């Protein structure tokens, strides 16, 4: 079909080109050049994305087929790109935020020597490429390609400074945990293949938007409830790996070992939302599996809460942000769990803005502090770095859910949906929101307020970062302020939720399904107002308290005790995993290697040889060298033969 969307292959292709140029020419290229290439390709594909977005907005969606990836009698997988509302939105986020972060990196990574600099951009481009593949993929396999691709890139980027082995460990941890996720994902896909014989979203995606119910009936006919629940749960396992949910979240905080822009791009804005994207993509299946939804909701909430509590006691500025990311992701899963797909996507977007903003801000701070990340050695930076300070404050307000900032709307949407399905969800959610507000401002306070607690030379190196860094901050700040306005709830403004309208086709079928299964009562405006009020007020209180407490924070060597200690040690989850998984595996492997393999199997094989040798030594003794003995044996043998022949 001669669709203008045919050109979408350019979107991932350009970053790939960038990767190749930077990768192959990293010895030759100068820093400016490679930085320019790296960013410009992203910009280019961003522009295309914008074009595509408007195409989609005018209702031009398509699955673009390029070539057969696998085409056998048993399985057909096209190398397809799917362009619809959902993917186009994500495309915008990825390329847009990605571009800003590239700009930012040009300055942030400037101290690296030029070939590492080029390498860094190569990896970034590669990441963007994979992420785009993930989002645009027209079926689970292409998605999985991107899925693994981003995992690889995050591995490479976390271990970017590979001289330090702790980085490598973090990288390995990330990759392995993701693999555990993939374990689930793949099983789900196999299950789909076994049952449906296809891996396209086609059967239950937007592509067949026309015969909605038809598709559902097909699915119901082919999949038992058990199948659906199983498949969705397994998919969710995959999501927990990628999107750092309980039980697989521990890699994300460690992943902060990577350069800050990486944390911002991969571990905040884009990659970690892959799980949400995937579930939103297969929304129908999930809607068909209420049990799974419930699981997702609970896991999401739990993650949100746990992560938030841990964040309370972290002193590494990036760690705090990391845990806040985890807990925000928890929100999104809550949203998915309660079926508020739009809310989830909405929060993904806003979160992308403010979390990227916060990370880049933190990065700017760290940059200024000369690599110092411990907040206890910071403080009073606001007079040194005004722009960073302002933008960071905006970011904090946003994440704390202050109206009219972006997160207010998205979070509100989620909480409302949660309340709809089950008030308990809402209570926990709000609680988490308060905690979030608190630790964010603890962070803000310890960093920017009070007086400086670092060393002297650090102090007189303090300076505002260059424009390449501040510019993205400003843009992101603006976005995170206004970004939420595309999703203004009905109560404020009729038809204000343009996002909902925009994404409607994607989730149409699930909504229809939900409606058909259990028609829910729309929340009354009053309750909705009440809910908002509670969350806002609570958050405000938390902010104020935190502000007072930490604006005059003093470094104290006092060891944390009780709950504080547990939180500081992240609920000892890592230790726990070590004890129940890593250690046993190592010892079992050791046992197999040293005992079963060497002594057991190989021992047996060699034993046969030994046995032959031994019996040889014994048989020789028959040959006594004495004729009489020989003939005696002969006669005895004769006797035996006779007996056999004559009497048996």
């Amino acid at each position, binding site marked *: 079909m001669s669709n203008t969307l045919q050109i979408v292959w350019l979107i991932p292709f350009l970053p790939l080109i960038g990767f190749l140029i930077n990768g192959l020419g990293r010895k030759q290229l100068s820093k400016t050049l490679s930085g320019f290439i790296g960013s410009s390709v992203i910009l280019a594909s961003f522009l295309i994305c914008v074009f595509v977005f408007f195409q989609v907005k005018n209702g031009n969606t398509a699955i673009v087929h390029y070539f057969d990836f696998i085409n056998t009698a048993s399985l057909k997988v096209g190398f397809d790109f799917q362009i619809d509302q959902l993917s186009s939105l994500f495309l915008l986020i990825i390329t847009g935020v990605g571009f800003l972060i590239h700009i930012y990196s040009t300055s942030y990574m400037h101290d690296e020597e030029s070939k590492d600099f080029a390498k860094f951009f190569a990896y970034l481009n590669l990441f963007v490429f994979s992420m785009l593949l993930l989002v645009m993929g027209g079926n689970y396999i292409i998605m999985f390609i991107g899925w693994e691709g981003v995992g690889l890139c995050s591995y490479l980027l976390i271990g970017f400074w590979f001289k330090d082995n702790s980085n490598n460990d973090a990288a390995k941890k990330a990759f392995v945990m993701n693999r555990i996720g993939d374990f689930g994902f793949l099983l789900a896909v196999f299950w789909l293949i076994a049952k449906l014989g296809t891996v396209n979203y086609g059967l239950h995606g937007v592509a067949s938007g026309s015969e909605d119910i038809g598709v559902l009936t097909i699915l119901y006919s082919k999949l038992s409830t058990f199948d659906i629940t199983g498949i969705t749960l397994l998919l969710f396992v995959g999501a927990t790996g990628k999107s750092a949910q309980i039980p697989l979240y521990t890699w994300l905080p460690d992943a902060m070992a990577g350069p800050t822009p990486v944390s911002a791009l991969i571990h905040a804005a884009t990659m970690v939302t892959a799980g949400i994207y995937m579930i939103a993509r297969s929304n129908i299946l999930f809607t068909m599996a209420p049990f799974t939804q419930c699981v997702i909701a609970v896991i999401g909430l739990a993650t949100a809460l746990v992560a938030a509590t841990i964040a309370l006691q972290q002193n590494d500025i990036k760690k705090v942000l990391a845990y806040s990311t985890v807990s925000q992701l928890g929100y999104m899963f809550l949203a998915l769990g309660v079926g508020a797909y739009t809310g989830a996507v909405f929060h993904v977007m806003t979160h992308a803005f403010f979390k990227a903003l916060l990370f880049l801000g933190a990065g700017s701070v760290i940059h200024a502090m000369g690599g110092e990340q411990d907040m206890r050695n910071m403080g009073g930076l606001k007079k040194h770095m005004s722009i960073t300070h302002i933008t960071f404050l905006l970011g904090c307000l946003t994440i704390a859910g202050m109206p009219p900032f972006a997160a207010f709307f998205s979070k509100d949407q989620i909480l409302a949906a949660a309340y709809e399905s089950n008030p308990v969800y809402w209570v926990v959610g709000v609680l988490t929101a308060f905690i979030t507000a608190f630790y964010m401002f603890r962070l803000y306070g310890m960093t920017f307020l009070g007086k400086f607690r670092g060393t002297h030379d650090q102090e007189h190196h303090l300076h505002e970062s260059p424009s390449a860094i501040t510019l993205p901050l400003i843009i992101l700040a603006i976005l995170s302020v206004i970004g939420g306005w595309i999703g203004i709830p009905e109560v404020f403004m009729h038809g204000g939720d343009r996002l909902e309208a925009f994404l409607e086709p994607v989730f149409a079928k699930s909504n229809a399904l939900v409606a058909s299964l259990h028609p829910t009562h729309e929340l009354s405006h009053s309750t909705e107002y009440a809910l908002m009020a509670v969350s806002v007020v609570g958050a405000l209180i938390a902010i104020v308290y935190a502000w007072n407490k930490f604006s005059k924070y003093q470094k104290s060597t006092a060891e944390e005790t009780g709950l504080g200690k547990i939180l500081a040690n992240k609920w000892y989850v890592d230790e726990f995993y070590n004890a129940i998984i890593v250690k046993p595996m190592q010892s079992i492997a050791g046992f197999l290697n040293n005992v079963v393999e060497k002594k057991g199997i190989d021992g047996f094989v060699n034993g046969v040889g030994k046995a032959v040798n031994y019996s040889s030594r014994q048989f020789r003794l028959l*040959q*006594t*060298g*004495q*004729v*009489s003995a020989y*003939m*005696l044996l002969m*006669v005895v043998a004769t006797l035996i033969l006779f007996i056999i022949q004559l009497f048996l």
Partner: protein
Amino acid sequence: MPINYYIFLALALFSIGVVGVLTRRNAIIIFMCIELMLNAANLLLVAFSKTHEATASLATSGSDAQIFVFFIMVVAAAEVTVGLAIIVMMYRNTHSIDVNFLNRLKN
């Protein structure tokens, strides 16, 4: 005479020969015992030749066995020559006719 008598007689001689071969260590005696075994076979053949002469039709049937015995004697004579030569040679080299005396080849 029933044929079985001859058979048992021959077997007896044969077995005695075997026992001698097994139990004696003097090479010459062993060799003589072997001769005894041969003779047992001879006797048996002759006895059979006579039964066949009785049963079978042809006039000459059974004679082949006696011819065979003759050839056995021929061979025995030849064997004795060689055998005694070997024993004498060994005696010359070792001054012993004990079959277990030479025991270099074993295992």
